[in-house]
């Protein structure tokens, strides 16, 4: 490492300043590989590494570490990546609270951060940064799309619920931003709650005509199973997180027919997506998830920028990232002024294909959606 460091220093100081020689890029990936949320991190990593492998690049080095879903561990790993591994780019964090712990400090130290998933509003508005890019979405997007879909589908009085934590509040705010009408009722559940009988009774008694829920991970699995058993038959709508490929099999029939919103689906018809879905199945023997798709796009974005500029030339590399000149598995993809995607968001339905459950696109929820915070961002 010392040697490479010296060599780079010599290079910039002497002759080869301007020439875009293939300069090595070192990426630090911090993601969740152990404990309860490991499935998401593993998919992120596998999607990212698939793109690296397909590109066959030997000038791209990736260091991967497990954050155990603990914010202080993520901070420590970021320090390690920056101070010891001397990475150029950080990526991989799944959870918003971990991203809030890592991103502001990392970009302050002059590192690029490409988000494969978490994109809290604080980093999209006044807290935006030239070195920070979200390749996934802005956190509110899928909830906004659900609101737009339910408005267009003619629902008048949905019952809306989310866990009592910042992402949960952003979710219901995002939903209401596009739904425009007044929900029948809104409740916040306990984070990590596993029993929803009380909430289901409230839903039944409320006279709502539909239900919007944001309950990621195990909470969503529990809710859907219990919803089915309760005999409630109001239409359910939610963001993609509770219907992702990684957990659909665990939800089972309870998810069949449920509409959910996502900016990606495995049946989006374009060459990049086909190469991704087929390649992922061949490489790992399972269907890819949303997180894998986001990891894959992130790696391809990075590679496209590497072809245009040296990572040490921050302004040029930033411009190369902003161009987003890569074949996204989502098809159309570009960045808004705050480095968050401008993209179409789809409505999907959970269907059975053979003996696996998966999602099928049934229409658009919002087209060319940026986000609500872009106006506050002053870069």
């Amino acid at each position, binding site marked *: 490492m010392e040697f490479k460091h010296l060599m780079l220093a010599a290079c910039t100081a002497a002759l080869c300043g301007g020439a875009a020689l293939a300069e090595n890029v070192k990426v630090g990936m911090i993601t969740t590989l152990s404990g309860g949320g490991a499935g998401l991190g593993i998919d992120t990593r596998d999607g990212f590494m698939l793109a690296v492998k397909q590109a066959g690049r030997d000038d791209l080095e990736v260091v991967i570490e497990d954050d155990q879903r603990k914010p202080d561990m993520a901070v420590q790993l970021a320090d390690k990546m920056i101070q010891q591994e001397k990475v150029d780019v950080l990526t991989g964090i799944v959870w918003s609270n971990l991203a809030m712990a890592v991103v*502001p400090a990392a970009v302050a130290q002059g590192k690029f951060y490409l988000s494969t998933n978490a994109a809290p509003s604080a980093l999209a508005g006044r807290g935006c940064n030239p070195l920070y890019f979200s390749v996934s979405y802005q956190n509110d997007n899928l909830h906004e799309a659900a609101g737009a879909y339910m408005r267009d589908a003619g629902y008048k009085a949905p019952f809306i619920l989310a866990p009592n934590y910042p992402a949960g509040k952003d979710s219901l705010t995002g939903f209401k931003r596009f739904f425009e009408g007044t929900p029948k009722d809104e409740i916040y559940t306990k984070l990590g709650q596993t029993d929803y009988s009380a909430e289901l009774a409230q839903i039944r008694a409320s006279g709502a005509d539909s239900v919007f829920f944001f309950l990621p991970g195990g909470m969503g699995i529990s809710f859907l199973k219990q919803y089915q058993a309760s005999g409630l038959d109001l239409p359910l709508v939610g963001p993609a997180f509770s219907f992702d490929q990684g957990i659909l099999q665990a939800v089972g029939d309870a998810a069949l027919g449920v509409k959910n919103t996502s900016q990606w689906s495995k049946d989006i018809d374009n060459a990049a997506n086909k190469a991704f879905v087929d390649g992922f199945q061949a490489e790992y023997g399972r269907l890819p998830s949303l997180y894998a798709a986001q990891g894959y796009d992130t790696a391809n974005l990075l590679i496209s920028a590497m072809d245009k500029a040296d990572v040490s030339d921050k302004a040029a590399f930033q411009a190369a990232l902003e161009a987003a000149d890569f074949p996204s598995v989502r098809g159309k993809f570009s960045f808004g002024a705050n480095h968050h995607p401008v993209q179409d968001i789809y409505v999907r339905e959970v269907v059975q294909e053979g003996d696996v459950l998966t999602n099928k696109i049934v229409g658009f929820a919002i087209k060319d959606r940026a986000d609500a915070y872009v106006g506050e961002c002053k870069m």
Partner: protein
Amino acid sequence: MRREAIFNTALWLGLLAYPVWAWLGDEPYQITLATRVAILALAGVGLNIALGLGGLVSLGHAMFFGIGGYAAGILASHAQSYTPLYDGAFTIEGTQNMLVIWLVAVVAAGLVALVTGALSLRTSGVYFIMITLAFGQMFYYFTISWPAYGGEDGLSIYVRNWFPGLNTLDPLTFFLICFSILSLALLLSWRIAGSAFGLALNAARQNEDRVRAVGIEPYRLRLVAFVISGAITGLAGALYADLNRFVSPTMFSWQLSGEIMVFVILGGVARLFGPVAGAALFILLEEVLGGVSDYWHIWLGVLLLIVVLFARGGLIGLIAGQGTGQATGQRKRAGGADD
């Protein structure tokens, strides 16, 4: 005893020398690791006063760690946004001065320890373990769902707080600050263990009735020990906030309470340097095993089991042998009454 003294000295010097060596070799991350060890050891020193001297098995010490952390986070965030903390009859401004932050952290954690301790110490044995756990969980859920200071997202301190006359942004300087505090806490802990108060506390742990017979109320002794213990752990929390430049509700999680306890046990309960040895070993394992396998928690668990089952004095017990007389020798059976 002599061997333990030699080991302690070596450990103290080693913890001091390592970051200096890393600084010479331009390895800032190693300094960060050493700082982490010093801070977690400080949290353990706090717990050790309750656990080792007082025999109070608290599974809620993350509560104090978190309060110290949030004291730092809240004061710093108000100072950074230039909004007063309280603006009524009088005005309280936020601050980024570490000395003020530490004072607030110690007082806040001490007060919470006074209240929760006064309630918890009415119980004993398993009930004490569980009620301290419950208090910790209360704070955990409260911080997650209370929106004012970031909820589950936590709170960022963008620039490390300052200490008069020092550049705290320099990793080695910050390490030396933490190390000095750790050393002072060790000194305090040593003085307490040897004082009349410490001896009475230790006696109360071994035989409550005998202490009561000479006219000392064990409840008060324990409460004082619990408050000192909580305050020191709170100070560690404030330093940890500055190390990470970030605080979050996970600082209150019961797993963290468990980990602080693990530091103490790995090193050796009631050994003065037990928490230091334990925290150093834990961080070392995390660094080494974490690189070897995704499933490294299995090996951590196995190692912990071995220590509990076969190496009862912890690391220091293995090296220095049994018989400091403080706790390890004659720990009571759990069979009959707990007290």
